[in-house]
């Protein structure tokens, strides 16, 4: 069954690392819905969060291919553990003197912040899970959406520990393979 899978990919911050990953997805036909990249607490390590759409076996295959890239340190499938995820939306909504109050009221209900005020538009910042962000957009649509930018989802595993211990980053040669993926259990035929 095709579904969205939220993956975190910890990578060495090396030239072309993004190209390596997107090229891999492109040439093997994996479907990325969103991708966001940023730095982490570890110097030299970046974290990508991506939503990959596909059947479970395809996503597992994508993870294993990612793990073979030298600059990929660790891949996490968030569906296997508890996680928090957020997305940031910037949206510019058209307003009229008549709609202004209603638009602001809806924004308040969503705890959206106004980040820019124009004569005929308000720009909001909304954070939340994907469902909330999408719902906010749907509420605003009748008023007229001028422009949007969504960051795509970012995620962290719940709990007190880092997703991978710091020594993995500095050991150089010992690369963590996601334990659950090392043996290909998702491909088992019954």
């Amino acid at each position: 069954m095709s579904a969205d899978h939220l993956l975190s990919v910890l990578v060495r911050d090396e030239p072309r690392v993004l190209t390596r990953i997107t090229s891999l997805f492109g040439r093997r036909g994996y479907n990325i819905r969103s991708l966001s990249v940023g730095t982490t607490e570890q110097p030299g390590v970046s974290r990508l969060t991506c939503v990959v759409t596909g059947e479970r076996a395809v996503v597992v295959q994508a993870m294993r291919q990612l793990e073979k890239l030298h600059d990929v340190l660790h891949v996490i499938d968030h569906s296997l553990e508890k996680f928090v995820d957020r997305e940031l939306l910037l949206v510019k909504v058209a307003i009229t003197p008549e709609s202004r109050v209603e638009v602001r009221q809806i924004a308040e209900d969503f705890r959206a912040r106004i980040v820019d005020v124009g004569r005929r538009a308000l720009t909001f910042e909304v954070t939340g899970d994907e469902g909330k962000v999408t719902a906010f957009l749907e509420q605003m649509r009748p008023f007229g959406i001028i422009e949007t930018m969504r960051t795509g989802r970012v995620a962290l595993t719940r709990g007190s520990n880092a997703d991978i211990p710091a020594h993995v980053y500095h050991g150089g040669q010992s690369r963590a393979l996601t334990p659950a993926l090392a043996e290909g259990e998702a491909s088992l035929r019954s």
Partner: protein
Amino acid sequence: MSHAPPTPSPSGAPANGAQALWHSLAAHGVTTVFGYPGGAIMPVYDALTLFPDIRHILARHEQGAIHAAEGWARATGRLGVCLATSGPGATNLVTGLADALMDSVPLLAITGNVPRSLMGTDAFQEADITGITLPVTKHNYVVQDAADLPGILAEAIRIARSGRPGPVLVDIPKDVQLAPFAGAVTPPHPLPPAPTPDPARVEAAAELLRGAARPVLMLGGGAQGAAAEVTALARAWGLPTITTLMGLGAFPASDPLWLGMPGMHGSVAANRAISEADLIVGLGLRFDDRVTGRVSGFAPHARIVHVDLDAAEIGKIVPTHLPIRGDAGQVARLLAGRAGAGDPPRRPDWEARLAEWRTRGGHPDHWGAAQAVRQVVSRLGPNDILSTDVGQHQMLAAQLARFQKPRRWLTSGGLGTMGFGFPAAIGAALAEPEVTCMVVAGDGGFQMTAQELATLTKYGIRNVKICVVNNSYLGMVRQWQELFHERRYSEVYLGDSNPDFLKLADAYGLPGWRADNAADLEEAISAWLAHDGSALLEVVVPNEHGVFPMVPAGAALSEMLETDPRSPVAGGPA
């Protein structure tokens, strides 16, 4: 303007980036490199003159150089090294890199590039070779600082050799080659150990073996480094054994358990055994589409145990019942150790069916490419190396040669690279000068890298025996056009314009023989092999011959055409 001769620092330590490169390669045990110079790699070639212990083989085309490096690596299991200049020199390596990635060949490619100040400006002979080769290398680098060079090389070589081997490219801008170097050479990185196979899964595999009535062992290229272990495994459990195109030689063909090669042009016995087996244990193979035929019809009755070092291969094509991540040799040893004491189990019903299948298939009784290839490859000794190009002759050689040892069979399996066979044999011949390196190539593929005849001459290489099987066509394409395109032979005829291959050899100083019938061929082979030095043999064969058995594309292995529907067949196994 002339450049001063390269000078090492008084201590003998490398004085610039280019010297650091050679020092690093020497520290990694590199003795032979294959390459072709050009503007952006000139400092490296200048520094080479300081390293008399490193042998540089000048090819006549970068593709020849990289396939030779591949042949060296495939025959020895060691790292192959090749060099090229920027731009067109580097792009000429691309085919070889893709070939090495597909077939898991440990390879290091060094390219020069334009100085960093010009990179990105479309400078003369500039190409973004790291970008271009990103999908066809295991990893690649641009060296930005000469001080990083030894560390990058040590890491690159470790990546090329470790786990599932593959090609790594290191691109060095010219100013980095020339930059002063004050550091030290990085010693070789130890290779990380293979992942320990899960003992519970190994035990589960042993349990499946105990219960199997119709087991089959399948060996791929990953078993080439573990021939002793996989052979012991097969014998301990009495497992009928199939070797894929890349696995040929990992199990001795003389062993009665051997069933041949599976897949599109596999033996009847191998393909029927897969189709009827109740257990398949696959070691170090990736169930390529040419092996499986239609996947939904592959091994419909079998439970599949798939052992591979590369987790991404397990379950990629064929759904697996029992995946085991690990080294083929290590898992084979563990499984062999779980066989009962005494004689291996007998399975009379299964053995009887296998025996019947072994009598089926085969090649036409009359003169043709199959008979010619059989005559030629039957003269190989157990230590001799056979290198092929790609096409009909390759499949015939794979069907008909009988390998007793691993790493004696060099062929472009995954990428199917025409032009591979001859330069690969040159690499192997330089690695093993005492061993006869036979090339079987078609008239099409041989002309893709025939310029490397000059390399034989230049280095006085005496142990390459080239056999060109000349059917005047791109035979495999012609066969498909015949079978699936109603004989519309589109752009496959070469006969009106092929060179006189003997004159071509002669132009490079090589003797040649020609035969166009079985009796003459026997004599010609003797003269060709007896000649003290490299030589060429042209075998002229009729053009409308096909390779059988054949599993048409999209068909299941069980739907194979066992013999050529148009031709009577000689008795005996394929």
